[in-house]
Structure formats: C-alpha cells, structure tokens
C-alpha cells in the first residue's frame, strides 16, 4: 500500500503532481470531456453539425419506446451468457497445461496459445466471416463432409424450424434465425491467450503439499480441479469475467463487421453499441445516440456494481 504522507511533506513534494498532469489532460480531453458532452447533447436534437435544438428528455423517452434498442439488450444478454460459457475451454486448457509433467511442453503450449492471438483480430474475424460463407465457406463444407448437415436437416424436420433444408447451403449470416447462433459459434474453440496465461499464473501458486494431500485422499482429477485448482484461479476468472462482460456490452465491432450496420437480416444481431453507432452515423441522430449511450453506461455501471457487491471472492 502506498505510504501515507503528511500534508507538510505533500506540500514539499508538490512536484509529484506534475507526474499525473499529462494523464489527467489526455484522459480529461479524450475520455471525460466526450462523456460530459455526450450527457449534454443527449438533451438535444443534434445532427452532429452546428444546429441543435434543445428537446429536454425527448431522446430518453424515445429510447424507452425504442423496440430495437430493447431487443438489442436481449441479444446482448444471450451473448454475455454464451461468453461466460466460452470461458470454459480457456480454463480447461490452463489446467491441462499446468498438470503437464514437462516444463518444456508447458512452455511450448503457452507459445501455441499465444500464436492465434497475434494474428490481427480483424484478420481472424474476416477469416471467420469467410468460414460462414454459404457456398465456399469452411463451415458448410465441414457439415456436409461429416454428414452433420443431414442431422441438422433431420432435426429441422422434427422441430419445424424451416431453417435447414436438404441441398440448400446454410446461409449462416443470411438467415435471420441463424444470426445469433453464428455469433455464438464465432471464434470456436474460444481460447483466449491472455485468459489462459493469467489462469496459469494463478495455478502456479498451488503448493506441492496441497496436491499431495489431494493425492492421499485419492481425489479424482475432477475433485482436484473443483476443490484445489478452481478456488485458486477464482480471482482471475472473476477478473476476466468482469472484463468480458464490459467488453461484450460495449463492443459491437464483431456485429458491425460480420453483419453490417443493420445487424444483419431482420436486424437480428443488433446490439446496443451497434444501434447507437447506427443512429449516429447512419440516421445522423447524434443527440439520440448520446442518450442511448447514457442508458448503456448506467446499465454497465449497475452490472459492475452488482458484480463487485455479490460476486466478490476472498483471495
């Protein structure tokens, strides 16, 4: 913890404040000022230019009645849940790596984990977009080759989705009902390099004796995981959980690039961020977009508060 300091010393150390000034200026101008201005503009009908009309709370009222906006939260909810599940592979990977005997292998696997991460995100994204392509895409090719397609068609027949048909290529990003599934499938097997590495960091603090104790009790490897390893990486998991939720709520690049500004056919993939972007830079309703942003901010703030309040785990 930083050492407490007497006001006299502080006065004498005034120069220290200069250290923080650049940070304050930059953050102030490029983060806080825009935020403030967003709040300010949310009370205006503002097309981004010089003319703006004060309209009080109208924007917020409109937002409350905005079907698409609320639908987008529904989409986000689904995505958040699926993303939480997507943590599992990373955890699994970390544990497996950690349990390996040889250090050299451990290291090699770490390298392996990092590799995909240095392929620029956009590239991965576009490659996946290409996988989803109905006619040339890898995904359909795979499904056809393995006969899974036939199964899907059969399922479709059972459930009456009217989505998968024999001999008709599956348009993952073209068929409204498949948009959200596609968004979930995206990035399989969902290994997050940073995630895996920090879990490993957590696991390293497990002392030998713990394992030995477990061994003596003849604990199965699942029990070992449940009672020895998982508690230890809980902190990291929670951290990445928070980060992940925030990122999911704020992010819309994925939807923007895969589906376009309208959130794909039927706007099924519309997320709050994208809707904001759409209103601002497509409809030119900048003021309204600001209002939406504020809703989003409050929402995220609330979530994080809840998280810190209840999901807390003692280290």
């Amino acid at each position, binding site marked *: 913890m*930083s*050492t*407490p*300091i007497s006001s006299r010393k502080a006065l004498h150390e005034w*120069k*220290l404040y200069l*250290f*923080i000034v*650049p*940070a*304050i200026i*930059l*953050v102030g*101008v*490029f*983060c806080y000022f*825009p*935020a*403030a*201005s967003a709040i300010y503009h949310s009370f205006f009908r503002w097309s981004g230019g010089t003319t703006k009309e004060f309209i009080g709370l109208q924007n917020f009222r409109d937002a409350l009645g905005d079907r698409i906006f609320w639908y987008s939260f529904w989409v986000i909810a689904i995505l958040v849940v699926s993303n939480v599940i997507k943590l599992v*592979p990373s955890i699994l990977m970390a544990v*497996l*790596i950690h*349990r*390996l*005997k040889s*250090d050299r292998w451990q290291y090699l*696997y770490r*390298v392996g984990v990092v*590799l*995909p991460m*240095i*392929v620029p*995100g*956009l*590239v991965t994204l*576009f*490659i996946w*977009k290409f996988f989803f392509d109905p006619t040339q895409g*890898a995904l359909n*090719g795979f499904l056809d080759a393995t006969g899974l397609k036939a199964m899907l068609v059969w399922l479709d027949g059972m459930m009456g989705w009217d989505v998968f048909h024999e001999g008709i290529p599956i348009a993952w990003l073209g068929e409204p009902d498949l948009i959200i599934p596609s968004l979930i499938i995206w990035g399989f*097997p969902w*290994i997050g390099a*940073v995630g895996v*590495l*920090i879990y490993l*960091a957590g696991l*390293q603090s497990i002392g030998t004796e713990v394992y030995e104790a477990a061994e003596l009790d003849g604990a199965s490897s699942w029990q070992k995981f449940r009672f020895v390893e998982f508690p230890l990486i809980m902190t*990291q998991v929670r951290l990445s959980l928070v980060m992940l939720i*925030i990122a999911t709520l*704020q992010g*819309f690049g994925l939807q923007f*690039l895969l589906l376009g500004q309208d959130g794909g056919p039927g706007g099924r993939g519309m997320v709050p*961020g994208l809707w*904001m972007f759409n209103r601002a830079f497509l409809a030119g309703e900048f003021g309204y*977009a*600001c209002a939406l*942003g504020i809703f*989003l901010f409050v929402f995220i703030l609330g979530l*994080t508060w809840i998280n810190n309040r209840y999901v807390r785990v003692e280290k």
Partner: protein
Amino acid sequence: MSESSSPAKLDAVTAKRPSDLGKHLVLLLLLGISLFPFYMMIQISLKDNSLFFANPWLPNAPDTWKWGNYLYAMRLILPYVANTVVVSVTATAGCLAISIFGAYFFARYKMPFGGFLWAAFLLLMLMPGVANIVPLFAVLKGLGLLNTLWALILLGVSGGIVFTMYVLRNFIEDIPKDLFEAAEIDGASHFHQIRNVVIPMSGSIIGTLAILTFLNTWNDFLMPLIVLRDPQLFTIGVGLIYLDGEYVKPWGQIMAAFFVASLPLIIIFMFMMKLFIRGLSAGAVKG
C-alpha cells in the same frame, strides 16, 4: 514471480501422476482448431479462385502457387502496415511513459486528492467507448485532428492509460519500500527513483503492458474508420475493411493480404514471446 521455482515442485507432484498422453491429445486438438483459420489463410493465399474452388481444403502443388497474390498484397497492405506501425509504436511509448509516472504518483505516497483521482480514473473502465464516439468525433473535429494519424495516436494513448496505470500501480506498490528510501537517502530525485528502482523492478510487466497496448492500437479499426479519409493514411484495420468491400472477391489475394497484415506482429513476437508470456504468467494482471 517467474516459473523458475515451479519445476522442482511440479516434478515432485507429477511423479505420482499418470501419463500425460490424454492431456496432450486434448491440448493439441484445441490448439489445432484454434490455429485452423491460420492454416486456411496461408494455403488459400497461394491459390487463385478457380484453384480454390477445385480444392478448397488442401494446399495445392507448389508449382501452381500463385506468388502474384503476394505481390498484390504487398502493394496493397505495406503502406497500411507502415501507418499502423507508426501509430501503434508512438501510442504505446506515450502511453507507457505517462502511465509509469502516473502509477508512481499513486503508488509512492498517499497524496492529497490522490484517492479521488484514482477513483475517477477507475470509473473510466466502465464507460462505454461507443457512448463517446460521437462527442469524441466532435472534439477531434474541433482540434482539426480529423483525418490525421495524430488523432489515432492520442486516442491510443488515452485509451491505454487507465488500464496500464491500474496494473503498474499494484506492481510498484509491491516493490519493497526500503529500496525507495535508500535511493532517497542517496538524494535521488523522483526521476532517478523511477529510472533506477521502478523500471528495473517491473521490467517484465512493463514489457507485457507494452505488448498489450501495442496490440490494442494495432487491432483498432473503429476509430480509424471514422477518423481517416485519405487512403494514404489508412491503418491495417480500415485497409482490410475496404478490401472486404470488394464486389467480386479474389480470395487468394485477400488471404495473402491478411497474411501480410499479420506478418509484422508474428515476426516481432517470435522474438519477444518469452518476455510476454513471462510477464503475464507472473500474475501481472491481479484481481
């Protein structure tokens, strides 16, 4: 800190454990799948459309490789790469410099207002970036920074500061106080203390943070898309998006372009991998 201590311990443990074959299989499978896009990118990048349709999955015979794709890709992407490098490097440097000082400020003493400022900074982590795009756009317009690389650099810096400072602070606080005191007694100014104590002590984490910030700016495409107008200034992000907008897609050339776009990072990482992995594995990012 580093894994230097772990081997002995682990060997002791693992001695009694069954063979790792199963684990290896699972791991390799996972890795294989997550590297599959990479594979597709490379093998398609050497085909033209007709070759690609003839056989989409396996690499084609070396004598039919279409190196022309790479010529095209180079001509297209290299300028973008150059711009991106300039932006990312400058942004990373700036971000680190500022954050180190900032973190030092918070970590060293409990200065008056320190707590308040800290809270203010942390709040930022929650703000939806999108919410600010519009006013941010207005700010940049007001500063005459639209359609400049400076805009991207400044945004990169200000975007990275908070997180970097957050992590660095924890680290500097873990540095034994007496080191600082000793330095102080030798009459070292704060600058000296940062140079001689902070930086050496937290080298690996600084490296990791540098790489993270670098990656963020490198991968950003939204701001460039909004800020930049002139193709001469495009960063990789915008460049790729424009490439994706073509009506008839020459997949080979596109994949080649993707590969060229990834190359710089891959090369750099080949060398700095250890640093990065150690930094993160050292529990850099604490809860």
